[in-house]
């Protein structure tokens, strides 16, 4: 493509199949203890 560069095409919806195991860290246990960014959490799978 000339006008649009794809930086990332991972599809969020596909994570639904593997997802929801609940084994990863609760987001507030990570670094901040006051707010919530979830997208930077590590998935355990």
């Amino acid at each position, binding site marked *: *493509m000339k006008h649009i560069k794809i930086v990332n095409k991972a599809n969020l*919806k596909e994570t639904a199949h593997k997802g*929801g195991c609940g*084994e990863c860290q609760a987001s507030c246990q990570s670094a901040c203890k006051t*707010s919530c960014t979830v*997208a930077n*959490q590590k*998935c355990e799978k």
Partner: protein
Amino acid sequence: MIHKFTLNDYKIVLDVNSGAVFELDDCAYKMLDFIDLPLPAECPKDIYIKLKEFSNDEISETYSEIKELVEQGLLFSKDDYLPFVEKLGTAPIKSMCLNIAHDCNLECGYCFASQGDFGHGRKLMTYEVGKKALDFLIENSADRYNLEVDFFGGEPLMNFEVIKKLVSYARSLEKKHNKNFRFTLTTNGVLLNDEKIDFINKEMSNVVLSLDGRKEINDRFRCFQTGKGCYDIVLPKFQKLVAERGGKEYYVRGTYTRFNLDFSNDVEHLFALGFDQVSIEPAVTEKELPFSVREEDLTRIFKEYEKLALLMLENKKQGKKLNFFHFMLDLEQGPCVYKRLRGCSCGNEYIAVTPEGDIYPCHQFVGIEEKKMGSVLSGEFDNKLKVDFASATVYSKEECKKCWAKFYCSGGCDANNYLYEGSIKLPHTISCEIEKKRLECAIMIKVALAQ
């Protein structure tokens, strides 16, 4: 839904529902404003008129690229998340904040825990109460294997002996119940010594070290009762702890206030001190407090995040392994959609326990009577409250449903929502604005690194 923005001269588009990210040229960036689904096979005439600064060839080429991405489900992709939301019921409790000490040896001016005692008098958790809390966690964790326990306060190291005993008690239960405990601890550093550093580095999978940055910034709020700042005392201890940590996870965590809106200097200062994992958060409290960041500070704050983003980008390009917590973003392999729909899951998968054994949805709700969920001593637990908290997804919050950042922010902090907007489902505007800016910066860094 898409979100388009320019930052650091990049024209960037995030396709909200798929999570795809694009960098566009001028023509494509402008054309997106005139795209209506379903797309006709050929570029509509009015688009040629609206984009007359571009040649016809450019326009038709760009149009076919957009069309291709739409057909691949990467651009203007459909929101079909509702079935997943409906599947999200309550979940086992697997994460616990143990408020091991409602007492503190500092009196930080901005502390939400009111000088460590959460407004309810100074108190240390006994071993007996702690044991009951761990038993409660195991009993309510169903088949979850990884259980997290955070030693929090006040200042947890004021109750170090109990922490040691609780860790060893928990370890003794792991095999029998097929669980893996992950301990974390948040400390102001005052009481750290060799013994404690060794213990923390051995047993804690993550440790959060509170330090605000430059000495004069840190010492303005992080003070002893005498008014003296703690920087000189805690810094060498933190440096020692990190040096001996052997690569295990840690964060130096600071707070910025209205008085240091140039906080990128504090992040830089912390990096220069040798800390490579840094998180700095705004003090968002009651609006009337002089140090609390306000709406009118946002422009300034945004600039500062942009500056920080450029700094992080420069560091990355030089191969330096420095992390700023809020710019960390894994576009490829981040958390699954279930995790993103419900964010922190406080009051559902995550609870906090006080020295008295009372259960609250999380550490920020401690002391709010109306949200008290039960007690690990009596075993009482308010399932209705749990159901209510479990229902706090990005689709049950009207603002979040419409928000482009919903799968990254995941609905914000329910405690801030409750404390400052009156309901766990009403997002706290200033926090939202800051969060969205941080995400834009994080995405820009990815785009820039893809060059």
